[in-house]
């Protein structure tokens, strides 16, 4: 990055170099990468002559993932989408409409063949040829397959796109599916969550732009940096779980004390996500479900969120809590040395010293004669 780049960048983004670097340091930290990676990512954005093209599709959903990006503060949505990447198609944000915007999409996909990033939010109905979700007279199924054909990378953003979400549970009348299910053989990055965390999305995109490849994924296509551990593992209420302190019902003494919500049906022990680490909305102070006293409902985990009853006990992936806990009482200022204990200690030390003296005496009296044994 030279002076010119930085000047241009400051003008383009309307943010100081310092803010810009702080943002990338934060992103790198989210992924557990070093400050070198932060620099590399900053450079990728700063020096990039042509902004990377993004095609964004919506299926069956509530626009939650787009909404969640609105809550990202660094950068804000408009700065990311208008200045850092080139968002060529996004149904809720596009200014244009109708044939005009569809034509723009086709043109962009043709011009950036093999280079654009495809983001999908929302599940894809597959029943009856996918007719239950149509855009511009084409089914979502067709749109997705078509756009995926020449995409450089595909990101399924939100639980719906990742594994079907709320539409896929219950009777599932439209046979809603996640993106990877209709694109067999293609690598799809899944970023589940309802809503998903915007920083996991930003971090994944920046990783791709910087290093030209996707971050390491787990068996379900989720980035390990964000979904490698259970919410439970890094939960700030975890010590209560380990010590057997549980809220038994809403508003009881344990609930007021901030005890573990496991017995209220918290699904943290079976949900892989980093909510407990990065929380939501950039204001910290416990702004996430468990932080405000409600059990996690497992929105990010297939087979848990929208499937298991809200207040049923989680299937703990690590260790289930024992039925009985040992009492851990704080004996601050405990009585100290007991008379009996002191006597006993003295007796033990005395016995060792005494026995040694006796043996030494015996050895001295017999030692020389026994030398040849």
């Amino acid at each position, binding site marked *: 990055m030279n002076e010119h780049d930085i000047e241009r960048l400051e003008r383009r983004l309307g943010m100081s170099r310092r803010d810009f670097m702080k943002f990338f340091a934060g992103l790198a930290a989210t992924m557990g990468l070093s400050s070198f990676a932060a620099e590399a990512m900053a450079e990728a954005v700063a020096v990039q002559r042509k902004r990377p093209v993004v095609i964004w599709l919506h299926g069956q959903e509530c626009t939650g993932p787009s909404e969640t990006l609105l809550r990202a503060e660094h950068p804000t949505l408009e700065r990311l989408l208008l200045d850092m990447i080139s968002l060529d198609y996004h149904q809720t944000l596009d200014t244009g409409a109708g044939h005009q915007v569809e034509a723009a999409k086709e043109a962009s996909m043709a011009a950036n063949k093999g280079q654009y990033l495809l983001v999908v939010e929302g599940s894809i109905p597959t029943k009856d040829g996918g007719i239950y979700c149509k855009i511009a007279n084409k089914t979502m199924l067709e749109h997705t397959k078509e756009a995926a054909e020449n995409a450089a990378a595909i990101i399924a953003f939100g639980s719906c796109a990742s594994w079907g979400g709320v539409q896929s549970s219950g009777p599932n009348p439209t046979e809603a599916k996640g993106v990877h299910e209709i694109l067999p053989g293609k690598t799809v990055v899944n970023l589940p969550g309802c809503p998903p965390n915007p920083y996991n999305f930003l971090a994944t995109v920046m990783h791709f732009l910087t290093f030209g490849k996707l971050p390491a994924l787990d068996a379900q296509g989720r980035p390990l940096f964000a979904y490698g551990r259970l919410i439970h593992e890094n939960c700030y209420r975890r010590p209560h779980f380990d010590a057997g302190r549980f809220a038994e019902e809403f508003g009881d003494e344990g609930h007021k004390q901030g005890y573990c919500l496991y017995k209220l049906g918290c699904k943290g022990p079976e949900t892989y996500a980093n909510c407990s680490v990065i929380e939501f909305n950039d204001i910290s102070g416990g702004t996430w479900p468990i932080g405000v006293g409600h059990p996690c409902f497992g929105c990010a985990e297939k087979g848990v969120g929208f499937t298991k009853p809200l207040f049923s006990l989680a299937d703990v992936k690590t260790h289930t809590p024992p039925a009985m806990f040992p009492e851990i009482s704080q004996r601050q*200022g*405990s009585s100290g*040395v007991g008379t009996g204990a002191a006597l006993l*200690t003295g007796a*033990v030390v005395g016995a060792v010293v005494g026995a040694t003296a006796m*043996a030494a005496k015996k050895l001295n009296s017999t*030692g020389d004669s026994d030398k040849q044994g």
Partner: protein
Amino acid sequence: MSAYKPLGSRIVTPPFIALGVIAAIGFFFLAMRFIYGMGSVTNLNGAHAWGIWVVYDVVVGTAFACGGYALAITVYVLNKGKYHPLIRPALLASLLGYALGGLGAFFDMGRWWQFYNILLPWNWNFNSVMLEVGLCVLTYILVLVIEFSPAVLEHFGAKKLLAVLNKMLFFFIAIGVLLPTMHQSSLGSLLIAMGYKVNPLWQTWQLQPLLALLTALCMGFSIVVFEGSFATAGLRRPSETPLLKGLGMAIVGLLGAFLAVRFITLLVQGKLGLLFAFDFASFMFLVETVLFVVPLVILLSPKRRENGGQLLIAAVSMLLGGALYRFDAFLITFAPGVGYSYFPSVPEIMVTVGLIAFEIMAYLVLVKLFPVMHDAGHEA
């Protein structure tokens, strides 16, 4: 076949019965601990999570059990075969000591039913010193069993198995030297992890592992002298002083190195002044130093070294010094927070004493039944 013979004398003797009574009291309180929980038996509290069960049974006890380790280095690494007659009793004592350490760690565990998790690799935390100590001690107990097994196999006349074992034994001996080096130094690393809770006179930071290893070796050699002397005095065995005095020289070197490292560290870290604070810690440090200097003085003189009684006094002083060094660092001057104090309760002490009594009983039974002690004469 082998120059090792079982003692064959009567097992149930008055001292044996006395030990049995002590052991029974210990086991009674141990049962209480499992029925009514740790709180009913121990004086442990929120800040002092480790009492004598860990500090004696594991930290000090395994150092007492370093005889097998120290002799294995001497005999197999330094190739001083003349000490070979001492190795089986030393290995037996090591095995019993380490088994006690492992057992101690187990019953000191608040939630002992989760113990099996240490064997599941996907639960391992590679940044944990305790994991290293735990796994290493566990493995070493198994290695000690294998190292000691020739004595048992000889007894039962399993010649074929013995031949196979003898071919592979060098491998286990090598591991038996490696493992204690690892976990004995890790016991020092535990103190690093405890940071400022450890009194500055004992907190030597990066040198903790070295100091722990040096004391472990010193105590290992001392315990061999100790056992040899007591076997002579108590079991009417021929004197082993001619052999033991050689080990005395090893202690001198290691102990000298230990004291040098310790005092130079205090000097470099600017802590020498603390020695003259004349508070409780400096007093304990002084007691320790005296216990370390006594063996140095005795063993440096060739004349005193020849004397079995003096040799034993030196060894016991060394053992007490080494034990006190660890007790001081882990427990006596350990300051986990304002307002907390800890001194073991009577039942707690009785569990430890009872287990030591049991250990001695096991030792006596095994040397009387199995070929552990070397046949008279050390010319071999």
